[in-house]
């Protein structure tokens, strides 16, 4: 339906053909790729299994229930390179400094064109292992952790996950041992500078936190060359008992670039995990964010602010799976859509019969600034326990004219008044950001996106 409404029948056929072309192409290229990169039989077997699965399933289509509101087809017309042809890296810190939260001391794991940049990175093996997955995979001392968690947390049956498993070359490896409160945040940065052609990147991150540990992680993907790159990223996160993780995704990529983010988190008992996603940039962004609470007294927090315009598309597709009693999840997504932007919120909360005494909250609030902007919002609760407290709600609104007049009467120009109202609308989500420098950065990005130069500082 969606495809047909946008394209004529013959161009639809072409699209499907191109999708198939890209799929066939990827599958055939995998053979060569795997021979070149092969070092570890176990990883090879997983890659093999994954490409077979991808071959069967192919790219998600709009007829798939989970992809109903996000059409990948236009992105799949491109004949992506899997890796940039020239692997020469010529990026200085000054070129990319602005993309870091640079006013805090942090560990940095930086990739340029899919390749680890030791020059831009600041890794460690002291209080924790904060390094690169490809090398961790080849070292005996990390074998146990990798075999325990790698490929075990992500949903293998997702075709985008299997594509990543088949082709990933590198990503971050973070291991925080028991009782370690990480002394500074970790910034994961993925830059693309290759300019000869479009690239399909497959970053793969494995993050394992032990018991009674604590960490802050910031992730960002940034195209620096105005190429229509596509990133299909997979991040697997294991969170041990009584451990806290705060994870920030800052999505302000170039307007040509697209991202499919697949993040899978499993939580042990008494743990608390917050993932906060700030989506301002990119052409198409799909966030598949999956939480699995494996034991009692887990708390999962999913927050998001989306501010987009033009023909940008941002889809938050979340799943929280509660399997044990006395757990909590708290989900709050706010979106501001200008011009012809398209937002999607699809939040599923799945409550197993054992998950009694649950408290699950889900809220999605949206503001549409034009008649052409679209939001598809779909909360889904599937509850199989009888003693739970679950609430969900969604709202779609517009700016209040009487509030705008009131503010203008007090000397605040219309554009600034609108921005102030919109910022106030989104500010509730920012309250949960614990690191002030991140909050400042997000606030600046929102002001920039709303086209005003005011200090919100509310």
């Amino acid at each position, binding site marked *: 339906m969606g495809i047909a409404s946008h394209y004529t029948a013959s161009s639809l056929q072409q699209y499907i053909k191109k999708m198939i072309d890209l799929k066939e192409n990827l599958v055939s290229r995998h053979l060569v790729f795997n021979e070149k990169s092969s070092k570890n039989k176990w990883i090879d077997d997983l890659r093999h299994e994954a490409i077979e699965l991808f071959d069967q399933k192919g790219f998600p289509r709009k007829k798939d229930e989970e992809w109903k509101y996000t059409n990948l087809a236009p992105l799949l017309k491109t004949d992506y390179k899997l890796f940039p042809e020239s692997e020469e890296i010529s990026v200085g810190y000054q070129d990319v400094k602005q993309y870091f939260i640079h006013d805090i001391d942090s560990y940095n794991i930086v990739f340029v064109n899919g390749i680890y940049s030791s020059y831009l990175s600041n890794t460690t093996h002291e209080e924790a292992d904060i390094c690169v997955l490809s090398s961790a995979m080849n070292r005996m001392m990390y074998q146990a952790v990798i075999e325990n968690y790698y490929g075990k947390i992500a949903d293998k049956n997702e075709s985008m996950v299997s594509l990543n498993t088949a082709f990933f070359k590198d990503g971050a490896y973070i291991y925080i041992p028991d009782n370690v409160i990480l002394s500074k945040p970790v910034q994961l940065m993925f830059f693309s500078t290759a300019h000869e052609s479009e690239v399909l990147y497959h970053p793969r991150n494995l993050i394992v936190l032990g018991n009674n540990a604590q960490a802050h992680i910031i992730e960002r993907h940034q195209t620096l060359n105005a190429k229509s790159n596509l990133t299909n990223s997979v991040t697997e996160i294991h969170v041990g008992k009584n451990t806290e993780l705060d994870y920030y995704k800052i999505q302000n990529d170039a307007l040509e670039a697209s991202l499919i983010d697949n993040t899978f988190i499993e939580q042990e008992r008494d743990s608390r995990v917050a993932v906060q996603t700030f989506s301002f940039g990119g052409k198409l962004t799909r966030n598949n964010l999956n939480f699995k609470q494996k034991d009692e007294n887990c708390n999962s927090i999913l927050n998001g602010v989306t501010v987009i315009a033009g023909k940008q598309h941002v889809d938050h597709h979340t799943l929280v799976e509660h399997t044990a009693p006395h757990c909590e999840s708290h989900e709050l997504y706010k979106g501001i859509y200008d011009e012809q932007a398209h937002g999607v919120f699809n939040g599923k909360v799945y409550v197993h019969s054992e998950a009694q005494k649950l408290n699950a909250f889900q809220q999605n609030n949206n503001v549409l600034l034009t008649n052409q902007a679209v939001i598809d919002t779909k909360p889904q609760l599937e509850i199989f326990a009888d003693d739970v407290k679950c609430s969900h709600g969604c709202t779609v609104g517009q700016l209040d*004219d009487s509030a705008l007049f009131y503010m*203008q*009467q*007090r*000397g605040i120009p219309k554009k*600034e008044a609108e921005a102030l109202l919109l910022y*106030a609308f989104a500010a509730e989500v920012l309250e949960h950001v614990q690191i002030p420098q991140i909050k400042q950065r997000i606030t600046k990005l929102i002001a920039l996106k709303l086209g005003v130069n005011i200090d919100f500082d509310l």
Partner: protein
Amino acid sequence: MLKINNIHAQIEEGAEILKGINLEIKPGEIHAIMGPNGSGKSTLSSVIAGKEDYEVTQGEISFENEDLLEMGPDERAHKGIFLSFQYPVEIPGVTVTNFIKTSINETRKAQGLEEMGASEMLKLIRANAEKLGIRKDFLSRSLNEGFSGGEKKRNEIFQMMMLNPKLAILDETDSGLDIDALRIVADGVNAFRNENNAVLVITHYQRLLDYIVPDFVHVLNDGKIIKTGGKELAHELEARGYDWVIEEAAV
């Protein structure tokens, strides 16, 4: 200062509400506009402030010899026009302090002045809050959200004192106030006024005019000013109602 000449206004594509109003306000003067419900009092204040819902079909309004009708509501505010709203709007997520800070600095920016420093701002906020008996915690609440009627009106007068306009229009600032709150608000207005600024009070009730004593009282009916007098006219209206004025005007 403010010259209104034969103004006609309507709600967009609706019936005419103002049917030829003439009014001149000079510096140092207090004018009161009284009139029955639906006579056009609030429309007049909205038209002066520049609310877009109203369309001016005829006439002129100038402020200090500049054409007001050409300006947006924010530009009018920058020129020194302040409207105390009959129903102040709730703005969740923006605190009273930050709102007034933004308001003052945007106004100063438009006037080509430097932004006001944080400590100067704080002093001014404290001084004015104290005059109006506004508690400190009130200032960090979201603007008008969950405020009582009296708190909202007091907050309007607080903003007026902070912005120090040339012309303050008080649109039914007295409705819903108890006598103590009314006194505080009136004291605020009296402290604000001087020979260089002016006040236009729009009200149903003569009571407020015992505290803010007008130089002129105008009776508005069916979109026109039908009678103008001194402060004693307000007392007469209170005692006799509006019918006699309306009948007199019809003759």
